[in-house]
């Protein structure tokens, strides 16, 4: 059986600065992987390569066996046509640090947009799904509210509903609680935990160590553009094998 996600020798440069220096990672259906590491280690960049928000210069990323973003023909590597890339992006869903809800649309309209425009559903079908997922994140009663009328935590839950409603094979979470006031963090983490329990495959870039410890089936520690260490969360957090991870864990808050 092919892996859900297969990253091979991923290289990414910004100009002359190499931020990913050869990352390999494979992930099975239903896995929940947390990616930890200090800022600048490349964890967010890696996530953004998976849905082509970032271009990458070397290596391959495949979801369910299909290569993302680039094709190689006759030895030449080419970016796929934009339409194809747009279709591939819908294989994954993403939640962002800054939520990025569309401010001129209600919560329901935010969730419906992709369903109508990308999945070509009728507005009625889309509304049924939007209500289902807003209910799931506990915000059905806020479906007609605009993002500006919601708290940060509520906005992030709507953003997660918007991504999940598209029925992605893999969810990407990019530091989704980093912009939230501390008292709003938990409601968002609970939603993600619920999705994990449902068997959703997820890659979670996070600074919440306690959460990574509790929710992950595997943890990846990124260090200077490479995977520094990876494994079972209990072993990683309690018995780090590398000096770098031990040091990183010492400086992070574990609460």
């Amino acid at each position, binding site marked *: 059986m092919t892996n859900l996600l297969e990253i091979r020798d991923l290289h990414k440069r910004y100009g002359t600065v190499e931020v990913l220096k050869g990352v390999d990672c494979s992930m099975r259906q239903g896995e929940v992987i947390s990616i930890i590491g200090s800022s600048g280690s490349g964890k967010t960049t890696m996530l953004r390569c998976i849905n082509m928000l970032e271009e990458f210069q070397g290596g391959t990323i495949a979801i369910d066996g299909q290569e993302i973003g680039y094709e190689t023909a006759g030895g030449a590597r080419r970016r796929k046509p934009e339409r194809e890339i747009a279709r591939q992006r819908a294989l994954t869903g993403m939640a962002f640090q800054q939520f990025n809800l569309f401010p001129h649309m209600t919560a329901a309209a935010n969730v419906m947009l992709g369903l109508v425009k990308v999945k070509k559903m009728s507005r009625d079908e889309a509304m049924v799904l939007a209500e289902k997922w807003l209910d799931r994140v506990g915000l059905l009663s806020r479906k007609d509210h605009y993002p500006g009328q919601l708290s940060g935590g509520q906005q992030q839950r709507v*953003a997660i509903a918007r991504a999940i409603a598209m029925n992605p094979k893999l969810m990407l979470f990019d530091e989704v609680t980093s912009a939230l006031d501390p008292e709003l963090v938990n409601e968002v983490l609970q939603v993600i935990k619920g999705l994990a329990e449902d068997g959703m495959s997820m890659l979670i870039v996070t600074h919440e160590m306690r959460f990574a410890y509790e929710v992950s089936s595997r943890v990846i520690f990124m260090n200077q553009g490479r995977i520094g260490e990876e494994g079972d969360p209990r072993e990683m957090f309690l018995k780090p094998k590398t000096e770098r991870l031990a040091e990183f864990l010492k400086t992070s808050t574990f609460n």
Partner: protein
Amino acid sequence: MFHETAASMTYSLNFAAVWRSFDLLLEGLALSLGLAFVAILIGCVIGLVTAFGLVSGRALLRKPAGLYVTVIRNTPILVLVLFSYFALPELGVRLGKIESFVATLAIYSGAYLAEVFRGGLIAIPPGQREAGLAIGLTEMQIRTSIIIPLMLRSVLPSLGSTMISLFKDTSLAAAIAVPELTFEARKINVETFRVIETWIVASCLYVATCSLLAALMRAAERRLAVPR
């Protein structure tokens, strides 16, 4: 010298002659509005396309857009109007007065509106586009569903004043004898010798129309405002 001053001081206002020709002024005003409406409509399309060119990462789009804006915005509109009407025919482009003026004002307003729209585009956080990409929208769908609606909301105040400015620029069509409001006023002035009255009434018509436009734009702002 003394005599002239005395004459102007004995000028007594008499609007009757102007009122008799008031329907001509209204016809002129209607034409002014028509010229502005068509020109600004075309200008909005030109401006939108140009604005996306101005913010494009591709030099092939950005450079020509920039050149267009620079050339047009740095040429007085009267010069453009005279150029299109008198010089273009020499180059084989022969347009009627009205068509020539509408085309000129459209191209002129396109350059101004492009700058207005560009201001709105660069104010949109990049995360909006990324969120659209992440759910699988194409760049064009992102533009129509997210970028343009957000941009229009943020530029409405400056869009309003630009539109009022452009409406007033229709008065320059008088220079090529298009019978809009200013042209009609000048004609009435010449025929009736009621200089002050004619220009007072014409000015009032401009002020009233512009105030109405401003009120409409404010209503649009209120209607499109995002609740928060």
